């Protein structure tokens, strides 16, 4: 038996805004968080999307949690906000019928950098830091803080890491394995990551311009989003607000260079076509990186001509788990009846594409699709429908 999966809580910690209501308002207004650095030490003219206010003391409860790293803290804060938003206590995912699915593209970058610098300089590792460097550190910390003892997993799918984790969690609910699942992802930005982008020439000179004809690069960002997923019937029975129904989907793969973007947009379009049926909004993966944007614009022009498209990485910055926030954008679109504009996009790079610009499109959204494109030919779409 397949159980319908409801999205009943949204937790967002983003450079754009934290908390779902301020995040929705900023999206709707078309604001962008891509701006001058405030936290990391990079040149003043740089563009980066940073989460500035993040206090461990306000979310960490356990003694072992005092050593929490920043990426894990982003995930934990988003998980707590999601439970609050769902009207559930923080131990609601505890017990054998609770699940946890998280993701991170790079994990705890800041402490990894410190550790490897010392290792290369002195030849020794720091035992206090090492336990935080495993990619599943966020999974460990969140499970400890929220008492999750049921099925849990950390997933990584490069640019589609957030979508991959959310779909793994949705499958647990759909299979009837758990009654509540927290699912999402977190990534942080560091000065070194920014410098790597700069030196490998993948940065936009100014603000990013996703899906714009003049797009020249992405804006590194950070943030976290976690969803509360429950069986639809259970959500209804407890009188929970249901943002949307999430359609479980394992995704698909296409031929592609191992380290790059697929070259055949038609294959992506063919894979997405059925998933786009009846969709009133597409939440794109485009970041302003020319190769990705060109591929996605062409694929969507084939598969979804005339459907409004929005690309939130122009607002929240680009990072491996930005897709988790893209799923939040889609849930808000379905629940709130609006497609937010794409900051930075003035002239769409493809004439067949209806990119929402300048002002939000207020209209009923019966279904929305997050495309979930990633390097290496993996596609992890997430379709949300009116409940």
């Amino acid at each position, binding site marked *: 038996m397949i159980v319908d999966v409801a999205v009943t809580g949204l937790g967002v910690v983003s450079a754009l805004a934290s908390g779902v209501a301020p995040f929705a308002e900023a999206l709707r207004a078309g604001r962008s968080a891509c701006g001058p650095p405030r936290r990391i030490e990079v040149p003043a003219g740089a563009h980066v999307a940073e989460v500035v206010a993040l206090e461990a003391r306000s979310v960490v409860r356990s003694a072992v949690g005092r050593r929490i790293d920043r990426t894990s803290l982003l995930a934990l804060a988003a998980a707590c906000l999601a439970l609050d938003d769902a009207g559930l206590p923080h131990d609601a995912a505890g017990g054998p019928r609770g699940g946890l699915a998280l993701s991170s593209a790079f994990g705890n970058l800041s402490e990894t950098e410190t550790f490897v610098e010392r290792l290369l300089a002195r030849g*020794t590792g720091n035992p206090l830091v090492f336990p935080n460097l*495993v990619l599943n550190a966020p999974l460990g910390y969140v499970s400890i803080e929220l008492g999750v003892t049921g099925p849990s997993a950390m997933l990584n799918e490069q640019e589609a890491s957030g979508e991959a984790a959310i779909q793994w969690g949705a499958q647990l609910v759909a299979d009837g394995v758990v009654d509540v699942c927290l699912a999402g992802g977190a990534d942080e930005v560091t000065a070194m990551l920014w410098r790597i982008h700069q030196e490998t020439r993948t940065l936009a000179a100014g603000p990013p311009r996703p899906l714009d004809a003049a797009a020249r690069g992405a804006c590194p960002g950070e943030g976290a989003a976690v969803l509360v997923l429950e069986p639809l019937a259970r959500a209804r029975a407890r009188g929970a607000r249901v943002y949307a129904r999430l359609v479980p989907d394992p995704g698909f793969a296409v031929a592609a260079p*191992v380290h790059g973007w697929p070259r055949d947009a038609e294959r992506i379009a063919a894979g997405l076509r059925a998933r786009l049926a009846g969709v009133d909004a597409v939440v794109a993966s485009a970041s302003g990186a020319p190769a990705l944007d060109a591929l996605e614009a062409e694929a969507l022009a084939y598969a979804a001509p005339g459907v409004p498209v929005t690309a939130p990485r122009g607002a929240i910055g680009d990072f491996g788990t930005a897709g988790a926030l893209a799923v939040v954008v889609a849930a808000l679109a379905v629940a709130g009846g609006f497609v937010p504009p794409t900051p930075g996009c003035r002239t769409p790079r493809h004439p067949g594409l209806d990119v929402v610009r300048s002002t939000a499109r207020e209209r009923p959204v019966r279904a929305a699709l997050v495309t979930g494109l990633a390097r290496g030919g993996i596609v992890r779409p997430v379709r949300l429908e009116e409940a």
Partner: protein
Amino acid sequence: MPVAAVTGLGAVTALGPDVASLAAGLAEGRCAIGPLTLFEHGGRCRIAAEVPDLPASASRGLPPATARRLSRSDRLALAAAAEACRHAGLEPPERAGVAVYVGASVGGMHEAEAAWRRRRTGADHRWRLSRLVATPVAVSAAVVSQALGLFGPRATFSTACSSSALAVAEAAAAIGRGRMRVALALGTDGLCRLTYAGFDALQALDPAPCRPFAADRAGLSLGEGAGALVVEDLEHARARGARILALVLGAGIAADAHHPTAPHPEGAGALRALRAALDAAGVTPEAVDYVNAHGTGTRQNDAVEVGVLRTVLGTRLRRVPVSSTKSQLGHTLAAAGAIEAVVTVLALETGLLPPTVNLRTPEPAWGDVDFVPVPGRRQPLRIALSSSYGFGGHDVTLVLARAH
């Protein structure tokens, strides 16, 4: 959970470049832990279970520029995956819909460390993308998918040392629930300085080859490698005439929610995972014939693990052989779950129990447990468990059964 068939195996380990060399090394009770040669390390430990020669043929099917950029983890993964597909008799036309589930924890860190050193010393005046593209752990799945033409769904799990047991569990669930017909479950991790120095700094490494379950056990030995299993719908396998090597009867996944590195003192998560796996498999503790243990050789892990087995198996533990493959292959981290699943399938298939090597004096309190002394022995098996526990308390147990 409906059963899934295992129809292909692949492995690249310190015992050799394929399953045949692994099986031979296991049967001989050979310990593959030797001097660390891959990089310099100034700490207290200088040994590891290294894969001596990475198969050069592994990058066949990829453009030369891509092949040059493969990480150590990628090469291990691709060799094991290619062997498993060949073993299963999966021809290219049948491969297109195959799902790929990978467990990985270090990705291209070994290569990233080299790039980092070049940038620090000025050998590279700027970071070069070509030296960093292999870093993310998801790349190995892309390598396997693109090189072998496996274009079904793809996922990479990273729960430290239980990562690829989770990949096997995911494959079995996808097959058992009818979502997929064929899936490749894979675990891969190459050695790198970060993990080596980290475990050494934690004083978790034994300066001598690890001695799981021994009274004087003093930590783990790190290793590297990859293991791969083709997991398939039983009817699909029969219909295409594939040889069924073993069955995956069930899997259990649970968390300790206790500590970032230390296991729960009573093994709460490990116990839940074991019980959930038996439940899913519809198997009683009395039916278990063999346990391929997590068995790292650390004081804490082995104590918790024997305690969990005693809780579940009770007095029957005396009659259930328990062995640790890590005593021969070292701890291959994210690859361990898949490699040990391969070892368990071999044991079920051949009835040859792999031994726990380096074990001279078992912990006195466990004198009643049969840790399978060298050289192992022949004993018909029907049902076996393979357990994997990861940092952060992420535990997975698999229940495997003989095919016939």
